[in-house]
């Protein structure tokens, strides 16, 4: 009888242990979850992106810091149609038509050498001012899709959401445990883009282009903060594969180096 009682208790304990573990494993399997509660995006932000950031052009320098010559299409997975377009493209004609900002569109704007000024326009709208080409991006957190009849434009329509790890390893940590800094990412999806250029020598993208970005904030042991943005450009009209690139920004103390400059296809 005592043995039976022990067995029942053991089964009870095993069930309790399973109850402890089950939800956790379920959470671990569902690695991420959007922050979909009723509070504002600004209140839910896992970190503060506001401030000034400068891009560091350490990769793809030849195609970002200078205007490459005709036919230099390396690193962009163009198709034949894109090549024909770019081969026939002339900067002078574009500038004469007032289209000098077409190389500053939403598919490539974060790739340019530039400074960003990030600030909340309102609690659910993050504004990114860009000094190169005097551009502004608006990241809409409240929207799940562009409004009906939203016109195409140079920066397109960007939906944004914070993505946090549901369980950041602190479930059973004591209340005094320090919060995880930088724990979360910003996912941005952009469409409604007007046609533009991926490179200032005429490599095009179409209005069918879709852009997905991951914005991640990273802090070194030195305290230096970096914003890295991973961008995937998909264009069924001009690309044979997605165009993937990374942009790195370093935090600046203030806006003293902010240097607005107009769009140019010559430089």
């Amino acid at each position, binding site marked *: 009888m005592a043995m039976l009682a022990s067995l029942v208790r053991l089964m009870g304990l095993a069930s309790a242990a399973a109850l402890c*573990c089950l939800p956790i494993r379920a959470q671990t399997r569902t690695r991420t979850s959007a922050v979909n509660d009723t509070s504002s995006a600004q209140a839910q932000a896992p970190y503060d992106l506001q401030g000034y950031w400068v891009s560091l052009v350490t990769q793809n320098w030849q195609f970002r810091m200078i205007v490459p010559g005709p036919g230099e299409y390396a690193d962009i997975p163009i198709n034949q149609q894109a090549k024909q377009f770019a081969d026939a493209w002339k900067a002078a004609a574009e500038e004469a038509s007032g289209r000098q900002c077409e190389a500053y569109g939403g598919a490539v704007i974060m790739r340019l050498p530039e400074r960003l000024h990030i600030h909340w326009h309102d609690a659910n709208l993050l504004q990114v001012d860009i000094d190169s080409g005097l551009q502004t991006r608006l990241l809409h957190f409240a929207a799940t899709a562009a409004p009906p009849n939203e016109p195409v434009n140079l920066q397109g329509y960007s939906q944004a959401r914070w993505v946090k790890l549901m369980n950041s390893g602190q479930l059973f940590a004591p209340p005094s445990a320090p919060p995880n800094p930088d724990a979360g990412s910003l996912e941005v999806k952009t469409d409604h883009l007007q046609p533009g250029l991926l490179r200032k020598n005429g490599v095009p993208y179409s209005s069918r282009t879709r852009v997905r970005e991951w914005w991640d904030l990273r802090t*070194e042991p030195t305290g230096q903060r970096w914003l890295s943005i991973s961008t995937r450009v998909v264009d069924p009209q001009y690309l*044979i594969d997605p165009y*993937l690139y*990374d942009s*790195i920004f370093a935090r600046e103390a203030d806006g003293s180096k902010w240097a607005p400059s107009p769009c140019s296809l010559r430089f």
Partner: protein
Amino acid sequence: MGPITLLAEVLRGVSMKSSRLTLGITLCAVQALCSGIVNAQVDLSGNWVVESTQEQRIHGSGPFPGNFAGIPLNEQGREGGFAYSGDQHEELYRQCEPWSVHYIVAGPWGGRFTAMRDASGRIIAWQLSSPAYDRLPMTIWMDGRPHPSSQALHTYAGFTTGQWSGNTLATYSTHLKDSYLERNGPPVSNRQTVSLFFTRHADELMVLGVVRDPVYLEAPYALAQDFQLALTDTGEEVPLYCQPAEVVEGLSDGFHTATVLPDQIPAAQTQMHRLYGIPLDATGGGAATMYPEFRRRLQAEYHPPTAYCRQFCCSGRSAALVCSRPAQP
């Protein structure tokens, strides 16, 4: 407390007809075990291959000799880079010179993450390996151990610790040996430190790397690259490690040493300048070349080539499918 010890505690609690208090403590212990599982965080296990297209040309043909634009080399680093010659890898003992740990974000290869567990199943380290690195795997210690004394052994794999922050694994490497930042020879010393940030988004892995070196760099050198989880075998198990071989006669005496006098830039190192008109003060690198304002300096000196591209015009699938056809007039 390991799971076997824990189970023994549970059984002891039952057999001793434990009180409710003991039962509560036991359940808390079970919870602690469960939290250990959670602390394993994101699973990085598997083969990861480079997904970014941004450096396909460099990943293929390699960077041009003497082109360090965007690399924050100081004067000493610049001289070291200009003195570099690919010939030196014909020397038997340098043929298999390994890459430092930062090369995960600079090179064309991905790598394999493997979890190292203790007896209780807890992850105590991650190993990042690839035959292409020609060195031991990078071991990322997750158990909180300190970095050893600065006098401790330096290796190409270095000594690395890591910790999770949400879905990002942040690592910090020290005790690395002298190496190169890129295939065209910009040097990095054994005093370098490397911070890597691995952020997993579903089957993609975004990696940011920051190299600091007081000997050859005048500012941190930051690089980023994206990877895709490979669902098929990537050949990781094949022993591709470099094997030194006899030097081909006539190419080198086997004991070649590059001889470049200070303040000299060998002609072979000015290819970028000659082909693309990029000023030499830009190709020499330096922290200033990373920043947007450097374009103002270039504006006066740089004029885009007018001739149609002749080499390395396309990369990836486009090279074969698109650019192999003659250019439009």
